[in-house]
């Protein structure tokens, strides 16, 4: 009887540890929305919603007519659906490690529109070799998957980095 009880306690303990690990998932939650992948991913890397806070997504989705210099207008039904997807899954609602780090680095009054301007992002990219971005296969810091080979899975760790014209990233 006692051993059974002990077993149960151990089991519960294991379960708790397990869920704690899930809560601290690495990276960011990958994109799992077909309309988003299609409508936004046609023109650029489909940034996982967990890379920006809810207030930023709202601002992005209210200005699609001038979307970083491009016209990215959608019909209202799709726009509303995508805004709901982005805000529900925004970084400030995420348990993923990389989202938390990004969100923590943003000043409380700030509403960044560019992921690449978030302090944590800037810090993590400070060692990118000068001029590397100009490579024809990269062209812009916003092309995540040009260097982050596992970006589509929400993984941005160093092991997955391969910079065109430079090579794999090693410490």
């Amino acid at each position, binding site marked *: 009887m006692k051993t059974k009880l002990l077993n149960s306690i151990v089991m519960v303990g294991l379960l708790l540890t397990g869920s704690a690990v899930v809560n601290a998932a690495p990276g960011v939650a990958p994109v799992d929305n077909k309309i988003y992948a299609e409508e936004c991913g046609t023109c650029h890397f489909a940034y996982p919603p967990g890379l920006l806070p809810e207030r930023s997504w709202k601002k992005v989705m209210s200005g699609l*007519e001038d979307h970083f210099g*491009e*016209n990215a*207008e959608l019909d209202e039904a799709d726009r509303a659906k995508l805004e709901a997807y982005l805000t529900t899954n925004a970084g400030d609602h995420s348990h993923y490690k990389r989202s938390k780090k990004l969100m923590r680095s943003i000043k409380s009054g700030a509403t960044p529109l560019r992921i690449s301007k978030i302090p944590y992002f800037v810090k993590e990219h400070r060692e990118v070799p000068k001029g590397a971005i100009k490579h*024809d296969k990269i062209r*812009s810091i916003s*092309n995540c998957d040009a260097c982050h080979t596992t970006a589509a899975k929400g993984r941005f760790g160093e092991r997955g980095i391969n910079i065109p014209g430079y090579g794999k990233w090693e410490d």
Partner: protein
Amino acid sequence: MKKNVLMMMAMAGMLVINVQAYAGDVELLQSEYQSQGAGPFSAAAGEKMWRQQYLDKKSGKQRSCQTCHGSDLTTSGKHARTGKVIDPLARSVNSERLTKVKFMKKWFKRNCKWTIGRECSAQEKGDFLAYLKGL
């Protein structure tokens, strides 16, 4: 013999259905533009406008459809800013083109505004389609 004739008729019927499915959405969209008072549509007018250069006041640069789609629509284009590859527009090499009304409307709206600085009229869009569907 009778069986053969029946078979032939069935096959001809399928062909008609196929052709309709292939061309359907362009004609559907063109007739929508007609219902707005536009038409008849001219492939030559569409081509002329396709190649025309428009000055973008903000950047001071000339823009045309070819800026991103390239000068040969049977080959891929490249987005002027992002470098994203744009699949060929000619149906002769890309059967997915001009097959979805919603898709065509979306890109007309975005690309007319980017290139010309305003939305295109129903007549202009119908002319574009007349040009593009012949490629």
